[in-house]
């Protein structure tokens, strides 16, 4: 496990906030797309791409890289923004999101953008693909140190295929597989507890023979510790349930499931009118600890 110094934690938090600003800007420009999930997962993606993953943005096909498989493709704004800031492609390209000819498709397409491991959008198939990769790696290289990280949503857990994949991963004891669930409690139609209750989730995953951890998905140190522990688990695949706040970072958007599938400018107007949503979101993000300096410099 990589130890994070207080300075590194602070730097990661600041980086996550810069990524959130990019998410707001690209969604506003696109005029469509998902807001709540990407903002909520900015900390997890930042930790992965700026600390935990073995990867090389300048050599995205590097054979020994860890693989990050995004199962819930609709949160791709956070993936794109993080990849751009990590150096995979120019940050300016983020503003092409969802536009004709863009490499940044509304849902990710592997062959359009170097660094994407899969195409995704239809829910529930990411863990299966990660399982396939992890299985193949075990055949190719039994002493491999690669990890296969699969990121899923919680609403996505309604899909039956998720549980098919988990069963196989447990059966095959894929200790190179680490699933991270974005447990933000919302999906399009409402709160997950109302649409389709998932709890007790820890026990469900444990009964599928996974090592399970539940952590605060906005706490860099807690996330880093969980990933470190998951890497150390032997003879079992791992799941980290990252408890996140949908739309984290923009307090007037937070915890509201109506922000699941709307961009700033088209979200609910109870608190902020459409024409001020982007401005309010950016203003708020820029006043968060550590980010004023980054913006002004």
């Amino acid at each position: 496990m990589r130890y994070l110094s207080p300075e590194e934690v602070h730097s990661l938090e600041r980086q996550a906030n810069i990524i959130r600003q990019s998410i707001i800007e690209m969604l506003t420009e696109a005029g469509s797309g998902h807001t709540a999930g990407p903002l909520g997962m900015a900390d997890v993606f930042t930790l992965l791409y700026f600390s935990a993953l073995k990867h090389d943005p300048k050599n995205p096909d590097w054979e020994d890289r860890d693989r990050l498989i995004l199962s819930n493709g609709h949160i791709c704004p956070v993936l794109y923004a993080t990849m751009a800031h990590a150096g995979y492609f120019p940050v300016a390209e983020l503003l092409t999101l969802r536009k004709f000819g863009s490499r940044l498709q509304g849902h990710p397409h592997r062959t359009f953008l170097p660094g994407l491991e899969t195409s995704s959008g239809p829910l529930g198939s990411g863990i299966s693909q990660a399982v396939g990769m992890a299985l193949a790696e075990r055949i190719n290289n039994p002493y491999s140190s690669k990890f296969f990280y699969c990121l899923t949503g919680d609403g996505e857990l309604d899909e039956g295929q998720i549980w098919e994949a988990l069963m196989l991963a447990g059966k095959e004891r894929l200790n190179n597989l680490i699933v991270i669930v974005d447990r933000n409690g919302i999906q399009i139609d409402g709160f997950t507890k109302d649409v389709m209750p998932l709890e007790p989730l820890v026990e469900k995953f444990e009964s599928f023979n996974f090592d399970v951890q539940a952590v605060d998905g906005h706490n860099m140190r807690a996330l880093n510790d969980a990933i470190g522990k998951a890497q150390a688990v032997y003879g079992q695949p791992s799941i980290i349930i990252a408890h996140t706040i949908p739309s984290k970072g923009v307090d007037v958007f937070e915890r509201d499931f109506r922000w699941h599938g709307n961009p700033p400018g088209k979200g609910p107007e109870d608190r902020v009118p459409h024409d001020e949503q982007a401005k309010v979101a950016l203003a708020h993000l820029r006043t968060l600890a550590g980010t004023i300096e980054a913006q002004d410099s």
Partner: protein
Amino acid sequence: MFADHLQKDLHTGAVEKKPTRNGYGEGLLEAGKRDERVVALCCDLTESTKTDAFANAFPKRFVQVGVAEQNLASVGSGMAAMGKIPFISSYAMFSPGRNWEQIRTTIAYNEANVKIVGAHAGVSVGPDGATHQAIEDIAIMRAIPTMVVIAPADVHEAYKMTLAVAEYIGPVYFRLGRSNTPVVTTPESPFTIGKAEQMYFRNESLEKKVGIVSTGSLLYNSLMAAVALEKQGIGTSVLHMATIKPLDGAMLEKFATEHGALVTVEEHQIIGGLGSAVAEYLSEARPTKIARIGVHDRFGQSGEPDELIAHYGMDIPSIVSAAQKLI
């Protein structure tokens, strides 16, 4: 006149019968020996899809996925992403029947080099009944961009096809039959993905003529229908299109030009299968009168394979009759 590479006794009607799935099983084993990247995945149907020979020979390269076809498709995609050549097998009714979207997104759209093996295709599955008789699989797979779709005629063609598919880079779907199928071709018969082969050449001295275009296990019925039609004074040729996509358009157009009218023959719905593919192509390239032999927008049912083939109008008399009406 039969193509010279076919079985010698076909004119007598005497023919050996073997399931096409056997050719796949032997081909997969051989492909596995030739290329260590070949892996096999199966959904609790290892013996009946004939994946067992490979699984026994290469246990570390075989994944038993359990009864989970959606997972099957996407796990296959993941293995392909790491350089493997996965053959994923189940019954066609379940794969691609149940997991079409996973095949579309995680295999085809992902450009994953996965081979999808649909066993027990067609009504000739027999007693299991309609739930297990895939007669829409060609239609749904043909509609997926980049997907290659193949229906081998018999055990020899299935063997050669499996080896060719292992070498081809890109997603492929092929269907296999459960029941004993007449062995028409020989190990020497040519097989190339995307290439149609003329298997029977009409008697050019006959004034009346018709062309039969077949795919899959109904090649034998098509050949026997050609023999019968010729006895009635109708010069008949048979073009076998094992590969339905990409369609061998050049050969098809030439065949249509030579014969004027065509009967398509397949063990599949007439909606979306070979007949549709041929009609679509020729309506643009060279409008041709076509009669389509296949299942006419109905479900199958229990019965013996031959009974069902006759009941749904895919037996030799049905092909003969369709040809007679056409000219």
